[in-house]
Each structure stands twice: as C-alpha cells, then as structure tokens.
C-alpha cells in the first residue's frame, strides 16, 4: 500500500531565513553587527583593549593622521652667566649634599616614553582613544543587550501569565501595566536611579525594570490569541500542564514577535545608557562607555580636541544604524504584518 509521503511544511524560522536572505540591506547589517560582536568578544576576553587605562601617549595626543602637535614655545629665561657664588659656609644643608647625591644615585628612575601621536588620538590623560572606544563599545552594547533581555523576560513572563490565565491575574497585571505607563518613562527611570544608586548592574536593572511594558502588552495579546487554538486544546487533552502549554507549546509560536521586540529594545536602551551615563546616573567614571566618552568629549571639544567625540560617535552610529536596519529586516522577515510599525 503506497502512502504519499507527507510533504514537510516549512517552519517559520526557515521561511523567515529565506525571506531575510533576500534582503540585501538586512544581510549587510547582519555582517556589520557580527563584526562588532566579534570585536566585543575579543574585548570581553581581554584579547584586545585590556590596557585601555594605561597612559601611553602625551595628554590629548592628536591622531596619527594629523601628525604630532608642534612644540610649544616655552619662553625660558636665559641661563645666568658668570661663576656661581659659593654659599657652602652659610648654607646649613651643605654638609649633607654629598650624602644625598649618593643616595639619589642608588635610586633608579625610568623615563616613560610617551608617544606623540596615537592612531585615533589620546584623551586628556593620554589614554588611547581606540582602546577606549573598543572597551566602551563592549560596555555600552553589553548594557543595552542585557537590559533588553531583562525587560523582555519580565514582559514575556507577565504577558504569558496574563494572556494565558486571564481573570484576576490578568486584571492585576493590566493594572500594573497601567501604573508603569502612567509615569513618563524618563521620570520613572530617574525615580529608580534615585534609590538604586550608580553602576553598570544598576543601569541594567533600571532599564529592565522600567522597559518591560511594551513587550508585556504584545506577548499578552499573542497568548490570548493562541490559548484557544486547536493545538493548545489538543495539548491540554493529552494532559499537558498549564506551564507546559504556556512555555513549550505557545511560546515557540510567538517567539518571533518577542525576538523582534527584543532587538528594538536593544537600540532604545543603548541610546538611553548614553544619556544616563552623561547625566551621571549610569556607568561610573572608572569604567568607560560611549556615554562617559561623550561626557568627556564635551569639554575637550572646546579646546579643539575632537577625536574622542568623533570616535565614540562613529562607532555608535555605525552599530546602531546596522542594528536597527537588522531589526527592521528581522521584523519584515518574521512578522510581515508589523511592517511599518515603529
């Protein structure tokens, strides 16, 4: 008896990947983001830019392309002419000069040669701007991604519970959602920052705890749509527990929506980190991020040292542009209905 072999239907990820591959802009931006991730990985494993704090150049060393700064006219006073007056019989310290000279000869001093120019220039302490930018990229992207993962996790779990169970739990979560969206975003972030203090972990926590509302709303809507579908009823019929139905059956079917939301959040949080760090509420001063670099750049620019500003802006602009284009391409590939939504 010949049974027609069941034709395998294409999975959502597979078709999405096909759609994505056709998107040239999406592929290029994926490559750029990939290159950045490699750089961040190298920086995180301390293979590059681990010495960003060492002062290798002269203060505010200009970029190599511009050549070293012309030596300043120091305006020294002429060396006095004529023989020295011998003061040794009135100088109370005279008997000890010889002893001190001997002791001084025993000490070794090393003259650190600081380079006059650095590839991307140096900051006010003479630290290499290139290493700083790489380290800053690592921290800024790390904060953005981790905060987005936290916000998405909170939003997904709450949205899944609210949407799946409905009733009292849903009412409560809807109330919570209303409360969090009633306060203007930036004010909510400030209120959290006022009580939690400063630091990288704190920024992640603040952004994550204040940014989950959008994800929650969408995941809840998806769960409401899915909970009555046949495959979920079928799973219930064979005895799947609510947890299993929520996270093993429904979640994979809405994961593309979550992924798109996550990538949009990353862009928003990276921008937020920059502004928070500038205002002194984010990454502390002994660390480096795009935000702290821009905060330093403000006073440097007035003195004409533009390279730190340029480096941080360039890295941030390239990464954020590539990441948002990639997120747009993901969205178009995974959920064509969302096209055009901001």
């Amino acid at each position, binding site marked *: 008896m010949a049974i027609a072999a069941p034709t395998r239907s294409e999975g959502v990820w597979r078709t999405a990947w096909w759609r994505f591959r056709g998107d040239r802009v999406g592929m290029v931006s994926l490559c750029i983001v990939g290159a950045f991730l490699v750089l961040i990985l190298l920086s995180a494993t301390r293979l590059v830019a681990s010495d960003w704090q060492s002062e290798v150049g002269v203060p505010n060393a200009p970029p190599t392309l511009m050549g070293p700064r012309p030596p300043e006219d120091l305006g020294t006073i002429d060396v006095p002419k004529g023989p020295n007056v011998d003061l040794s019989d009135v100088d109370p310290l005279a008997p000890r000069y010889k002893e001190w000279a001997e002791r001084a000869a025993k000490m070794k001093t090393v003259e650190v040669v600081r380079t006059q120019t650095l590839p991307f220039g140096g900051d006010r302490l003479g630290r290499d701007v290139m290493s700083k930018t790489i380290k800053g990229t690592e921290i800024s992207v790390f904060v953005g991604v981790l905060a987005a993962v936290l916000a998405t996790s909170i939003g997904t779990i709450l949205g899944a519970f609210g949407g799946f169970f409905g009733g009292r739990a849903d009412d409560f979560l809807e109330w919570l959602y209303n409360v*969090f969206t009633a306060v203007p975003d930036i*004010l909510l972030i*400030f209120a959290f920052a006022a009580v939690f203090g400063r630091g990288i972990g704190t920024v992640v926590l603040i952004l994550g705890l204040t940014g989950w509302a959008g994800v929650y709303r969408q995941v809840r809507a998806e769960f409401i749509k899915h909970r009555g579908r046949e495959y979920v009823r079928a799973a219930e019929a064979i005895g799947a527990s609510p947890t299993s139905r929520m996270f093993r059956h429904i979640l994979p079917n809405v994961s593309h929506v979550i992924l798109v939301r996550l990538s949009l959040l990353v862009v928003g949080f990276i921008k937020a980190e920059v502004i928070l760090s500038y205002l002194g509420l984010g990454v502390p001063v002994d660390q480096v991020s795009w935000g702290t670099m821009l905060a330093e750049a403000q006073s440097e620019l007035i003195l004409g040292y533009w390279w730190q500003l340029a480096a941080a802006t360039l890295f941030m602009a390239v990464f954020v542009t590539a990441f*948002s284009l990639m997120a747009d391409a993901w969205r178009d590939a995974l959920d064509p209905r969302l096209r055009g939504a901001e």
Partner: protein
Amino acid sequence: MLAYLLRRLWQMVPTLIGVVLLVYLLFKYFGADPAVILGGLNATQEQIAAIRQQLGLDQPWYVQLAIYLKQIVTFDWGRSWATNEAVSNLFATRLPATLTVMVPILILDTLISIPIALGVAYVRGSLTDRSLMIVTTIALSISFLVYIIIGQYLFGFQLGWFPVQGWSDSTWTNLSTFVPLPVMLAVLVGVSPQMRLYRTFFLDELGHDYVRTARAKGLTEDAVLFKHVLRNAMIPILTNVGYNLPGIFVGSFLIEVFFSIPGLGREVLLAVNRSDYPVIQAATVYLAMLTMLINLATDLLYKVVDPRVVFK
C-alpha cells in the same frame, strides 16, 4: 458625554493609587534611610533619631503611608531636603522655563514634520523618499547628546550666532535670545522620527478606496491630499501629539542641563543627584496625574476631529 467623562475619571483612581504605592514602596524599601541623608556626614545618633521622629519614620508603616497620602491630597510635600524651598514653590517657579522651551519645540516639530511626511508619502518609493529614509535612519542612530555637543560648539562657540547658554527673567528675552539654539537642535532631532511615523500614517490613508474615488471624480491632487488624506490622517497624528504632550511638562532633561535652563527637568535631575526624595516623589506622582488627564483630553479631542467617534 458627562457620564463618559466621569467614568474615565473614576477609572483613573486605581491607576493613581498604583502610582502612589509604587513610588512609596520604591523609596521606602529600596531607598536609603532619609534620616541618614538629611543628617549629613557628621550627624550623631541622637540627631538621626530626632530627624526620624520629626519625619514620622519611627511610626508603623500604615501611619507613614497615611502621612504620605495626606501630603498628596493636600498638595503639601513640605520642603526640599537640599534647599529648604517649598516643593510647591519649586514647581511653580521652574515650570515656566520648561514650557518656554518645550512648547515651541512641540509646535515646530509637528508643523515641520507633517508637510514633509505628506510630500514624501506622495512620492513613495522614489529616490527622494528612499534617500530621506536612509538619511533619517542614520540621523536617528546618532545620540541626541552628540547633536547638542556639536550644535552648541558650532553655533554658540565658533560662529557666535547664539549665546552658549543662559537665562533671564524676561520671557521675551528668553524667547528671542536663549531659546532659539536649544529649540533648533531639539527640532532637528525630533523631526526625523515624527516624519517617519507620519509618513506611515499618510501611506495608510493613500491606499484607501476613497482616495481612488476622489481622483476618479476628477479632483485635483491638491484637493485629494489636503482635503481628504490630510484630514483623515489627522486622527493618528493627533493621538501621537497627545502622546507627546505630557513630555512638555517633564521637559527635556538633556537640553535643560546642557543649556543651564532653570526648568523642571534640571530640578528633578538635581534632586536625583542630591537624594532629595520629596521633590522626586512629588514630580513622579503629579506628572503621572497630569499625563492621565492629558490622555483623557486627547480622547475628547477625537470628537472634534472625527465626528464618527461616539463616547460610550
């Protein structure tokens, strides 16, 4: 209409209670001890105990919550811990500066982005449309911070067209001298996202049947665009403006800090840096209240723009 209004106001109550509870719990359980902050570095145990008693911190939690609720209802938050200025006075004196900057930004943003968006949506897919989309994507990826750093340096410091920063007592001097540069920079940054959003609204409308019908009956393109499409797209645009409206009271923290404008945003930021809890708490609760009221007002405005809307 009145019934609708009353019901909406009634629905705000639980949300407002939630905001109040959130702020209360946040500062009570995660914030540092107010008595220690107020006492300063050299406070003795007795002084801290005295402050604690004065603030009611030695009372059980429900008494504290009652004190807190009384502050909200009577609009009396006491005095700022840092400057001893009454919180209500602080708001009254800082809000005008914020509005002087934020109202022109909101108006210019909207007035500039609507015509550009309409024009771009009309020529969708053309080179102009695509290049503008690419330019705005890149422009959006650069931090607002960079725009104001460079803008202040270039226009204020190098070219000297505007004062670098400053503020005066006269509204007119402020509007003519100190406001133009921050407003210009904020509008420059604000127009791109608005324009992109409004473009999608116009594209939505342009795809509808009524546009085809209007063209089929021989209306000029101007009439189609400005009388039909623009009016219909005004509903989502209005929603978006309404959504942005509460922001003008919060102010742009960055602009106010950067240009030393003595507004509400800068005051709240200062309060965060000084751990000045009364100011932060009052700002959060009242601005949440204001946001909800503005949202209600926006909903009521729909009726004016779209006669089909019926309040239930």
